[in-house]
């Protein structure tokens, strides 16, 4: 991590026992590249296959085996770099990072040390109720994942699964630009959105496709950077926040008691919410990086980079700007809708030719709340673009009142039926025809002479009459028409 302070502006302070402290956070994100085969071999990368079923001779580091770069992984890294507004390096070099571990078959990881494929870039991060921040990206490089060690199958042996061995990862390193757990979480969320838009990483943290090493230090405002600790391999956005808060608190306690921070690698324990020491600087590995002589330097032509740029999809920030501009959305609504590519596409699908305000309210309101309640993704929503569109059409042509629409929506969630069909089958359409409503209004007035007398004293009682009429019509009468007829009949003006 670079020690350059990119901003002196203090955005966030935490109160210790004695002083106020600023937290300085930098992240190293490991994002698994979406590709059919591994970075240097033809083995499949699919998740959850039988142990050792996706292991080639290269992945197992058999004698005499050689790596061959997978062009698709290179393309994905370049795409990601462009999505992070970053400089793409025409020349990059693969290095060997040497260390021994049973799930590292070669005895080294092929990575990029001095010359990464992608250089400096930036990511804008928005918040609901405060100013956006820009997080600077230091670099992005390609590297191989290791295999998996399994320690709980036997008392005497550890087991190794090499299915992951050699899968391509992008390591995305930020500058120490983040100042709170909230900012860090928002940044990772935004980065994940960008990666998913690009289709370069699926962002599934529970499957380990996205992991973060979190560098945390604290300082008094205006001081030089403090000594940092690196929390390894945190695998959920919530845990990233917890780890930062715990670690900052731990460091502040030590410093306020007059102690010093040991530069060390730590682990986050999600069961306790605490971090604990893994190894200190003295025990740190000497990785003996050197250029991998089995691989030539990677040269990317400007044409190749241009071609990838042409294929780049619309990114969340561009889409948000377009939503504000083209649909007149508020900044907040727009950022909610673009946070997920599928949501944004859902919105645009429904919005076509319809009342935008109604569409936004239904998606960000009823739909998101229901999906949340049912723990469903928009991608597997029982409500489709077509069905929600039809529902909104039924509201717009006054077939359904807002209340009826909500009832229909609930049935749609359950049955995945189209709203028109539900309305027909259940006879739910609104009664708008004045004559039909008039009959009911007359009936209610006739049956309740005392209430009529009362109403003339207290005009607010009109609500009771509307309620009665709605009851009589099983909710199907158009409330506006009911109101109008009542007022006419009772001469309420």
């Amino acid at each position, binding site marked *: 991590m670079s020690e350059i302070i990119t901003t002196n502006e203090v955005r966030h302070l935490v109160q210790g026992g004695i002083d106020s402290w600023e937290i300085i956070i930098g992240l190293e994100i490991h994002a698994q590249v979406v590709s059919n085969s591994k970075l240097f071999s033809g083995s499949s990368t699919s998740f959850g296959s039988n142990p050792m079923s996706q292991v080639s001779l290269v992945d197992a580091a*058999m004698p005499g085996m050689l790596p*061959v770069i997978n062009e698709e992984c290179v393309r994905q890294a370049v795409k990601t770099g462009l999505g992070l507004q970053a400089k793409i390096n025409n020349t990059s070099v693969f290095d060997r990072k040497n260390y021994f571990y049973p799930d590292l078959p070669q005895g080294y990881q092929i990575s990029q040390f001095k010359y990464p494929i992608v250089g400096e870039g930036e990511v804008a991060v928005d918040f609901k109720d405060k100013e956006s921040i820009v997080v600077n990206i230091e670099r992005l490089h390609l590297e191989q994942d290791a295999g998996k060690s399994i320690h709980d199958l036997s008392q005497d042996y550890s087991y190794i699964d090499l299915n992951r061995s050699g899968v391509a990862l992008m390591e995305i390193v930020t500058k120490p630009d983040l100042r709170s757990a909230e900012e860090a979480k928002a940044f990772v969320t935004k980065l994940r959105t960008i990666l998913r838009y690009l289709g370069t990483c699926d962002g599934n943290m529970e499957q380990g496709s996205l992991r973060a090493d979190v560098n945390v230090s604290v300082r008094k405002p205006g001081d030089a950077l403090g000594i940092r600790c690196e929390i390894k391999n945190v695998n959920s956005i919530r845990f990233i926040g917890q780890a930062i808060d715990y670690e900052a608190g731990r460091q502040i306690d030590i410093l306020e008691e007059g102690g010093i921070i040991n530069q060390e690698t730590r682990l986050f324990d999600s069961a306790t919410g605490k971090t604990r020491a893994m190894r200190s600087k003295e025990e740190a590995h*000497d990785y003996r990086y050197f250029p991998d002589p089995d691989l030539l330097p990677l040269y990317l032509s400007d044409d190749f980079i241009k071609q990838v740029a042409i294929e780049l999809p619309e990114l969340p920030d561009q889409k948000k700007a377009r939503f504000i501009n083209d649909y007149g959305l508020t900044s907040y609504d727009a950022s909610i809708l673009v946070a997920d590519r599928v949501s944004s596409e859902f919105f645009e699908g429904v919005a076509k030719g319809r009342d935008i305000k109604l569409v936004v309210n239904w998606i960000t309101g009823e739909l998101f709340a229901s999906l949340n309640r049912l723990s469903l993704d928009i991608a597997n929503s029982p409500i489709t673009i077509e069905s929600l569109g039809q529902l909104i059409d039924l509201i717009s042509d006054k077939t359904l009142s807002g209340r009826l629409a909500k009832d229909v929506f609930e049935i749609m969630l359950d049955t995945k039926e189209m709203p028109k069909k539900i309305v027909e089958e259940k006879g739910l359409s609104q009664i708008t025809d004045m004559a039909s409503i008039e009959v009911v209004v007359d009936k209610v007035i006739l049956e309740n002479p005392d209430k009529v007398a009362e109403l003339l004293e207290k005009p607010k009682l009109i609500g009771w009459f509307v309620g009665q009429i709605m009851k009589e019509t099983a909710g199907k009468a158009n409330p506006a028409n009911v109101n109008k007829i009542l007022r006419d009949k009772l001469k309420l003006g």
Partner: protein
Amino acid sequence: MIDIKNLNLKQIRDGLQNKSFKAIELTETYLNEIDKAKALNAFITVTPDKAISMAKESDNRISKNESRNLEGIPLSIKDLYCTKNVRTTAGSKILKNFIPTYESTITNNLWSDGCVMLGKLNNDEFAMGSSNETSYFGPSINPWKRKNDDMPLVPGGSSGGSAVAVSGSLSAATTATDTGGSIRQPASFTGTVGMKATYGRCSRWGVVAFASSLDQAGPITKTVVDSAIMLKSMAGYDVKDSTSIDLSVPDYETNINKNIKGKRIGIPGEYKIKGLDADIEKNWEDGISWLKSEGAEIIDISLPHTKYALPAYYIIAPAEASSNLARYDGVRYGERVHRKDLDEMYSDSRSDGFGEEVRRRILMGTYVLSAGYYDAYYLKAQKTRKLISNDFDNAFNTVDAIMTPTTPTTAFNIGKKFDDPVTMYLNDMLTVPVNMAGLPAISIPSGLDKDGLPMGLQLIGKRFGEDDLFSIGSVIEDCRGTFPNPAQWWIEK
């Protein structure tokens, strides 16, 4: 009985084609000779069943006029090449029971051309050595002896077994590998022709790696034309080796005995090193006058950085080796010393599995790549390598090939230099610069010294200038005259 002692590969090829003898007879003759030559210890593994079945297949094809280019020619393979279902040891205890499930690209090329495999040849452990004495399977012995001296001599290394098998007429030709002279030095010590191809000419896929940026394959044969025939089959672009070059392989055989009138031959002053044997220096002068007499132009040239080649080589080669050999960790294949503790398992498996010279080079390599030493050693060595390469580039502006002795001395006694690694390393002084520059070079038997031991002249060519080396080499061969076979002292009467 076929007189294989006086047959070279080309003659065997012709004999098989015009049905003077059958592949099976030939193969049985060789197997018989191998059996009688145990004292030479040239083979680690003999594969008689495989040889006989391959020979039968060849006879079958010959009888049906379906011969492939090298149909029925019995070869042996350095035990650094992985051979499918045939034990491949790299001369090491750690791989003493390793049986690959795959075939190296080069051996696959040879079998596809119809060659017959007799067995796997002895070599220095992981190709680290210049005398074949570091092999876990014991030293291979030079078929040549000094006049009136019964002391066993080294055949050179690391491809000792490959040179012995050809010199002792135990195979029509053999494969070898050359990282710093491992083909040319043993060829020179045994009166055989050793060709190291241009880096990138032959695939390294499936050949156990010593130092990836220096390793290159080539054949050892009795004659220059045999060398041309073998290299044609072995060489070629391989998508599985990212450092192999996509260039078509010429028909090298057409270069034999080509007129060399006007060819410019460089003689580098820097190769007249201290310690260059007087007979060898005289032989070099003979070589110069032979070429002159054939119309070549002799030009004195300078390769000013020659003296730095050996020290730089002994940084780069061990550095790469220390990383390449990390995969032999006892985890997936190879010998393991069982221990409860992981670090103990690693260190005991590797201490037990690797011999002293291999351990020495791993330690040297680890040291020069370590934090704080990398710039002073590895980086400096790489810069030196570039200067050495530039020297050659400059020279090739004015010459077509360079001629030098292959080694400073002829073969030495077994045990003489074994405990003095630096003296042993000096053996490679005249061969190492070629590997540093990635150039092709050939060693041709050029005479016998006062003790009756073979001497060799080295021709160094331009990148992919193998054809020039074959034409000039065949002229040297002609001028030299018939080269004797060693007395077959190893056959027990």
